[in-house]
């Protein structure tokens, strides 16, 4: 085979029913870039409507992209596409994990791995470059993800990277993860591997990722990009006053400063002043332990960690000795929701009454240990709010059999004792009793236990989409209608960070608005927080661009928690970043000339295919009314205040309908229904998709 550039050139297909392992060429999918794009195209082509997530006919696609494994900054994401069991319509979604897995796929020569069919006994998949085999996993079944990874690595040797499920995935819990690298989880698709009896994929690759362009150009581009990079979430302003900084903002994740340490290192490592021009302290800018847990975490932070090729280290790696009392290693790593969601389950707070005290830190790290070893997903923190509703409304007393109810250590929950989590996660992971239906996700459990209307109308429960049962994730509180639109468009919580990275950058709002004007056509694309204005076309452009870049990143695969580099920490550039970087890297990697606009068009194609698949699965073109609805609390909060007055982030119903119309227009979708039009599908090179939808009478 001729030398491949950027892409590895081949896709691996493994049929677990027949045991047939085959390879096919990547080239036929190149219009879909990689990762998410490949996943959606393959699912569209191969998984018939009406397939249920745990059916053998469902497939799961592990996707890398043309930039994965190249070593360019923040390129370590793995995209996983399949049907989502927790979605009430079983709609297609993609879940993602960081770590080192997808780079290892590339080094083994694979752009994607398609898993199809189902084994009748536990197996794991062994991939050593071109040598691929299905192995017996009877000795692994029943183990947690930590031991599974160790066992697979023992069998394969060093440089092995493993993606696997824990007991939750084995038991086909809807809210189950696929885990890699101890702290990286992809939410919602773990049960699908369980249904296929695929415990793990171990991968060892010794091949290169070739680039078509000149190496010195690549290195110069890398250095240039490194000059524009910020801290975690591309926050470009430090958290506290710094000698080099014009601005600071306490919301920023750029926490590095003199006197702040990785205090658990021996000897401690000082984060220091982290001048943005110093390449050797980029990884010290984000002391996420302190950001997530408060000052107590400083002395427990052994180091920061994260993904392959990423200089921004966003996972805090902590030593919490008391974890040993619960049978876990004292070493634990995670970030953000991985630590926060166990706190959400502790609905009565922590025993010392402190939100960021010692007990909270122990509880959050214990919860992270349990969830990551069992492989339990939190539905972006929603499982705790589902539990809160059921507990506080007295529903659990009614729906749980008395002996089960009495066996649950409620006293520990009421007392704020972290040990409650040990009991809770075990029940979820092993599907023990009625309580474990919390593991089905908000949609299913709210129906099963007959939750009241207030579950959807009270903002305490943070449901964003009553139809899809997913929560807020950088929604109306993030750039007004922009965040709201983004949150309506996916089939699970939106994992888009393009907009929140921009608004959370720490720069003064007037400067943000000025730069917004340059990128999206008018400063009015961005509202002042809690001082919103009615919808306008620039907000629609901002929302579209945010999603297009998000899906591109999930296809290339780059981290949308860092990319795009819309802003930079450099005063001398007026804090401007460079939005053409992705296309420049891709051009150098593949040798195919991509302009920024051409690459964005590919993103539009991928996202429109996502929409078309949703239309096909739901069997309706009426996306506006059947899919894109928003919970009432978003409009009814602050009842004494009107929308678009200072001090509230509530939205207006009529204005939001207009927002949907304007967004559909930007996408070239039908302005009434929000379904992709034939014209747009053809323009995006999706004629065959249009033909299929026409046959199904699903074109507007």
């Amino acid at each position, binding site marked *: 085979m001729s030398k491949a550039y950027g892409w590895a050139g081949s896709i691996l297909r493994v049929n677990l029913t027949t045991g047939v392992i085959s390879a096919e060429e990547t080239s036929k999918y190149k219009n879909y870039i990689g990762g998410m794009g490949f996943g959606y195209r393959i699912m569209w082509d191969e998984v018939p409507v009406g397939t249920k997530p745990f059916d053998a006919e469902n497939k799961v696609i592990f996707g890398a992209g043309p930039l994965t494994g190249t070593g360019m900054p923040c390129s370590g994401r793995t995209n996983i596409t399949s049907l989502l069991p927790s979605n009430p319509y079983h709609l297609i979604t993609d879940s993602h994990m960081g770590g080192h897995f997808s780079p290892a796929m590339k080094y083994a020569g694979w752009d994607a791995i398609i898993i199809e069919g189902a084994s009748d006994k536990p197996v794991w998949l062994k991939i050593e470059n071109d040598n691929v085999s299905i192995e017996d996993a009877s000795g692994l079944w029943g183990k947690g993800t930590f031991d599974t990874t160790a066992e697979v690595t023992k069998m394969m040797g060093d440089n092995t990277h493993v993606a696997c499920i824990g007991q939750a995935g084995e038991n086909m819990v809807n809210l189950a993860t696929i885990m890699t690298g101890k702290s990286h989880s992809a939410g919602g698709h773990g049960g699908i591997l369980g249904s296929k009896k695929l415990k793990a994929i171990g991968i060892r690759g010794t091949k290169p990722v070739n680039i078509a362009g000149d190496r010195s150009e690549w290195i110069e581009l890398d250095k240039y990009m490194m000059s524009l990079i910020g801290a975690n979430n591309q926050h470009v302003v430090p958290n506290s006053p710094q000698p080099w900084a014009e601005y600071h903002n306490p919301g920023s994740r750029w926490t590095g400063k003199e006197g702040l340490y990785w205090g658990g290192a021996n000897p401690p490592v000082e984060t220091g002043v982290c001048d943005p021009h110093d390449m050797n302290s980029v990884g010290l800018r984000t002391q996420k332990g302190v950001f997530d847990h408060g000052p107590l975490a400083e002395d427990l932070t052994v180091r920061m*960690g994260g993904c392959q090729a990423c200089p921004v280290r966003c996972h805090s790696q902590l030593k919490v000795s008391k974890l040993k009392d619960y049978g876990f290693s004292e070493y634990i790593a995670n970030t953000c929701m991985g630590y926060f969601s166990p706190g959400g389950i502790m609905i009565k707070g922590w025993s010392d009454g402190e939100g960021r005290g010692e007990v909270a830190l122990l509880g959050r790290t214990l919860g992270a240990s349990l969830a990551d070893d069992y492989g339990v997903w939190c539905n972006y923190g929603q499982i705790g709010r589902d539990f809160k509703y059921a507990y506080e409304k007295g529903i659990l007393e009614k729906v749980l059999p008395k002996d089960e109810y009495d066996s649950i250590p409620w006293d520990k929950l009421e007392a704020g004792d972290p040990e409650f989590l040990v009991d809770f996660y075990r029940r979820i992971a092993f599907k023990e009793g009625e309580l474990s239906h919390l593991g089905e996700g908000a949609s299913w459990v709210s129906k099963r236990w007959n939750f009241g209307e207030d579950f959807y109308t009270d903002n305490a429960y943070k449901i964003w989409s009553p139809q899809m049962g997913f929560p807020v994730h950088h929604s109306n509180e993030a750039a007004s209608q922009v965040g709201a639109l983004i949150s309506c468009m996916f089939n699970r919580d939106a994992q888009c960070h393009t907009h929140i990275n921009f608004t959370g950058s720490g720069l003064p709002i007037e400067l943000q608005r000025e730069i917004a004007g340059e990128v999206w056509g008018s400063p009015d694309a961005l509202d002042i927080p809690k001082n919103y204005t009615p919808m306008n076309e620039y907000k629609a452009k901002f929302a579209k661009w945010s999603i297009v870049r998000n899906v591109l990143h999930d296809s290339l695969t780059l981290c949308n928690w860092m990319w795009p580099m819309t802003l930079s920490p450099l005063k001398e550039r007026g804090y401007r970043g460079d939005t053409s970087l992705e296309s420049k890297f891709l051009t150098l990697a593949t040798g195919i000339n991509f302009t920024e606009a051409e690459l964005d068009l590919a993103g539009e194609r991928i996202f429109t295919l996502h929409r078309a698949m949703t239309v096909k699965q739901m069997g309706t073109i009426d996306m506006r009314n059947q899919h894109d609805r928003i919970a009432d609390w978003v409009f009814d909060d602050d009842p004494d205040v009107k929308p678009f007055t200072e001090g509230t982030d509530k939205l207006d119903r009529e204005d939001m309908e207009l927002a949907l119309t304007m967004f559909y227009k930007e996408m070239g979708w039908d302005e009434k229904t929000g379904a992709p039009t034939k014209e747009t599908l053809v323009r995006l090179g999706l004629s065959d998709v249009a033909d299929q939808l026409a046959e199904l009478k699903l074109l507007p």
Partner: protein
Amino acid sequence: MSHEEKMGFWEKTSNRREFLKFSGKTVAGVTVSATLLSLLTGCQDTASVSGFPLATGLLISDSTRCSGCRRCETICTMNNDGKADPNIARVKVGRNYNFGPGGPKNDFHNKAGNYGNLEIIPDTCQQCKDPVPCAEACPMEAIYAEEKTGTRVVDTEKCVGCGMCASQCPFKMITVDEDEKKAKKCFLCDGDPSCAKMCPTAALKLVPWKEVHATIQKNKHLFA
């Protein structure tokens, strides 16, 4: 690093005999990373003069600062080989990343690695003392000491990619590039290692012998 700075760096290096005196007497009881220990172990004194004078400086790693991003691996090969290829990287982190050197132990939770006590150990070329195992093993006599720095480098004209050097390296720091059929060995990027320049946590440094000595005596640790 400019040419002048580079030359200045090499001038600062101490002579071999001075370092060896130090390494023989004062290492015991000093807290150093595993990488440095293995480095020092390879340098017990012989005063004999040979065709392989000691390299005047070393790339050393600090496992306390390493956060496991492995940027060094791909920067090394992009810079020197024009591709991203951790397998042939002259700095090796990936193999120790999850479970530390030697892979998973039964009590892996307490051993090195991301699944263990979180210590990530980057392996660097030791630029071994004479007799240099890789050079000794090479049937083509393709490995020689570079004139200015003493760094042991592969003459790509002579190398036939037989892999004898890789098999004889006690630290498994040489890899044969199967595409090019050439041995890939650390040559310190001619005195200005790209991996160290771009390490986002300053976990890799090119250190003259004298400074290795001084740093350990002062701080009991490499880069503190």
